[in-house]
Every structure is written in structure tokens, then in C-alpha cells.
């Protein structure tokens, strides 16, 4: 896949039908990587914890694959570590595809493999973000800051 320098996927990514977002194998691999690399320690089942939630409607750096890949690869301020030296770029793309699926607002046709543990939220391909989304009292998101 793409090299470790730029964040833009090569043309072939689109020609192949965006495999990391729309291919059950890659999503399943992403789900295993999510467990193996301890993402759940901070992000829980996608609802956050120490780290931000993927389901609350806020993508701090945007929901595009490129920015999710960049977040995983290079890390982000406030505690997100860089996985550049721990995963190959292929794995980062797989993981990013999975993370995007959890937080997706449109249920996807493809699904990663099922949980071995008890389900703690709706399955990824059902668009848990839209099911769990709670408008609630309109509070300023802690990372949003005062409106300009």
C-alpha cells in the first residue's frame, strides 16, 4: 500500500474499491489489531475512556481515512502514541478502516468478524454511532473549545 511518508492513498486504493473500508477481510484484520495493539485500553469498545470516543459524533481530526491513518501512524497530542514503529503501514490502514467503521454514521454492507466476548454495543456494521448517538443537552465538547 502507500509508503510511510505521505498520507494520501495511491490511486490503486480507489481502483480496488477502497478495500480497507469496504472489505470484510481487512476490517476483520483491523478488529484483531484493535485488540492486539491495546486500542481498547484507552478507547474502550469505541465509546472512549481515557481516550476520545469514536461514537460521540466528534472526529477531532475528521472522519477521513487519511486523517485516521495519520493519527495512528504519527500519534496525536494528549496521549495518542505513534504506532509508526510498531505496525506496518498496511496494518495501520486496516486498523484505520476498522476504526472508521465503528464510528460510521451509515451502516456498512461489510462486517468484520463477530466478537468472541459479549457484545457491549451494537455490532460494527450496524452503525453503532448512529444507534448510540445521544444529542443530549447541548454542551460544548471539551476539545471543541469556545466558538470562534
Amino acid at each position: 500500500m502507500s509508503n510511510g511518508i505521505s498520507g494520501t492513498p495511491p490511486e490503486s486504493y480507489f481502483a480496488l474499491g477502497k478495500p480497507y473500508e469496504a472489505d470484510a477481510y481487512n476490517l476483520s484484520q483491523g478488529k484483531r489489531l484493535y485488540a492486539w495493539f491495546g486500542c481498547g485500553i484507552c478507547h474502550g469498545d469505541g465509546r472512549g475512556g481515557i481516550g476520545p470516543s469514536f461514537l460521540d459524533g466528534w472526529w477531532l481530526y475528521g472522519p477521513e481515512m487519511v486523517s485516521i491513518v495519520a493519527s495512528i501512524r504519527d500519534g496525536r497530542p494528549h496521549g495518542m502514541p505513534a504506532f509508526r514503529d510498531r505496525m506496518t503501514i498496511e496494518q495501520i490502514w486496516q486498523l484505520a478502516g476498522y476504526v472508521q467503521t465503528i464510528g460510521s454514521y451509515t451502516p456498512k454492507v461489510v462486517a468484520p468478524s463477530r466478537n468472541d466476548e459479549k457484545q457491549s454495543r451494537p455490532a460494527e456494521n450496524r452503525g453503532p454511532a448512529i444507534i448510540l448517538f445521544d444529542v443530549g443537552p447541548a454542551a460544548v465538547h471539551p476539545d471543541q473549545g469556545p466558538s470562534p
Partner: protein
Amino acid sequence: MVVLGLALLRRRRPAAEDANSEERLTTAVSAAVAATVVIIAGLTIASFYTTRSIGVPKSAALTITVRGQQWWWQVFYAGSGATSGFQTANEIHIPVRTDVQIRLEGADVIHSFWVPSLAGKQDLIPGRSSSLLLRAEKPGVYRGQCAEFCGLQHSHMAILVIAEAPADYERWAASQREDAMVPADMDAAAGQVAFLAKPCAACHTVRGTAANGTSGPDLTHISARQTIGAGLLETTRGSLAAWIADPQTLKPGNNMPMVPLTSVELQNISAYMESLK
């Protein structure tokens, strides 16, 4: 069928002896019921004791935990008291003429542990643990194989059971408990540095270094094992290099990614792997 035929052919008795025959019939039926109860209870008890005697004893001399993964075997030797436990992969050493209990666990899908020369098959089911008793009478290398289709590389999921004299086994276990050797030559030392800097260390453990990943096999003593990739290739420096260079061509679908390395890094890392005796 025979009884039914006899009953059809049998001549009807005259109805005169009714009172007498009623009594005799009652006795016969009660006797038959009693005999059936006794026989079934006897067989149930006999089957219970037989099952118990062929089952795994509670206190085997050695307990080894084997975890089936796609597509390799993770092996844990538990520590006891002063000795620490250790982890290895795709190879079990056992002392001869000793009952060894194998605890089986599945990590992802159902696998089946089968060493035809030593014991029958036993499934490894995720979320459950089962047991199997191994006993080798003669020293030797017994090949085992996953016997439950578990995915693309099911056929490349072999395990070796190496039975050896108790003294040899103890020597092997002692060397496995040691931390990894400090690389002696320059290539291997450079390999260690590259191994720790590259994604390798995120999935593999080499005890005694900072590498402590758990999703791949423990590599602390990889070179002491006969094969790599669960029976795929013999452990030589060349095959280690081939495996690291392109695991997806050698064993498509496995979970080891192709880590981009320069040729020098590849050479050094394979030298380092080879030095991990």
C-alpha cells in the same frame, strides 16, 4: 422380531387357567423389570468408573498448556516454586515414560490437537479448556497436526512432540528458562537493534530485551526449535531470512505482515534470530 414370530405361531392356551396364569405373569413382569433396573444400573456404574480411569488424572507430573492460534501452537510451561515458567511455540518437549497433561485452549477458532503416535484427537475450543494425557514410552520426535479445519493455512499447522530422557528434558527446560542470549557478533548485535526498532518487537517477545509483544510466537529461543512457521520450514538462517522477507508468500494469510526492511537489516535480523539458541 424372533419373539414376535414365536408369539404369532404359538397356540393360544385354553382360557381355563386364567387365575393362575395372571399371577405367574405378574411375577414374570416384575422380575423382568427388576432385572432391567439392575443391569442398567450396573452398566451405568461400570461406565462411570471406566470413564474416570481413562480420563486425565488430577495430578499429572507435568502440565503443559497449548493454545491453538491461526496458524501456530502457543505452548506454555508453567513454573513451579523456584523455577519460572516459559513460553515456546510449535514444539513440545516431554520426558519419556511420564504422564504429561496437556491443557488445550483455542484462541480464535476451533483447532484440534492430534499426535497420532501418542494419543487421540482433542479439540481446542475458544472459551473452553480441555485436557489430554500424553505418555511417550520411547524417546523420539512425534509429529502432530491440527486435525480440525481452521482456515487457509490449516495444513501448515504442525506441532512436534519431542520425547527425551528425563535428564535431557531437564537440561532443555533449564535452557529455555534462561533469558535470550546477548548477541555475540556484530551482525547479530545490529540485528537486535533493528529488531527492537522495527515493528517486530510489537508482536514478538524476546525475553531479556525490550521486545514483549504477545500476539506472535515467543522468539527467545527460536533457533533451538526445529522448525519455523509451525512446521513450514527448517530453522536455518536462510529460511529465517526468507520467512522475514516475505511471510505472505510462504504462508499466505498468516498474521505476520511483510515488514519493509533493507537488505542489510534483513541480513542482520536473520543473524540475530539464528543466534537465539
